[in-house]
């Protein structure tokens, strides 16, 4: 016989019952091929890998990064051309 561990948990039961899923209409056979799925994955919104460098609490990285970048490029030019 199957014991119901939710029997006494009316609150949890009511919360779980709130979780409805809307099932979209889609065919049994996939329209998109494997590579198309890969393209869809690439086209979906993704995280910016430089996000932690750009957004900081006080925005200091916005000032520091261009200055440091300019200094680095200048240094490279000095080393190569002088």
């Amino acid at each position: 016989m199957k014991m119901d561990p939710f029997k006494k948990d009316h609150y949890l039961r009511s919360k779980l019952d709130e979780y409805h899923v809307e099932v979209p209409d889609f065919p049994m056979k996939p329209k998109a091929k494997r590579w198309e799925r890969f393209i869809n994955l690439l086209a979906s919104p993704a995280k910016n890998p430089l996000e932690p460098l750009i957004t900081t609490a006080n925005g200091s990285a916005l000032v520091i990064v261009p200055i440091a970048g300019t200094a680095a490029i200048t240094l490279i030019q000095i080393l190569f051309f002088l």
Partner: protein
Amino acid sequence: MIEREDELMIAYQNGDAAALDRIYTLLKPSLYSFIFRYTRDEQFSIDIVQDSFIKLQRYKHHYNPKNGKLKSYLFQIAYRLMITKLNRRNKWRTFLPFLFPIAAEELHHADRITIRDAVAKLPEIHRAVILLFYYHDMTHDEIASILGIPKGTVKSRLHRAIQLLKDELEGDYYENGSL
């Protein structure tokens, strides 16, 4: 007891191609709901459902009604496909994190924890057990066969999952008052 979909599968094994369409109509909603509640990814869930039915067609003669219901057999196929894909995706995510879509959790900013969030926060091994038990009315034996774990492990994971869900929803419970 032989279920309707089991009879249809036998018909499909015997060459009735239309029986597969009826199986799809009967089992697609529950299979999609399981995958969606587990992953919260609509496109991924659709892909898994479609891939599961492709596999069901390819290995239609592997199904034997004596070994269990068709629903359990199909869920087992889907669960294995889903875990393989998720593991593969996680490996790629480690190397190329910026290639992957933003997770649904990161887009959601509700202050109060919803049941969706609470279920999503459950560790994967506990999530599968509670979803199969509560939403799909499966027995411990069926869950054990789908997940490939012993029956005792199913019971302990179910118990732990309920405890974790209660802990997660506790704040909400006190805000609303006891029922």
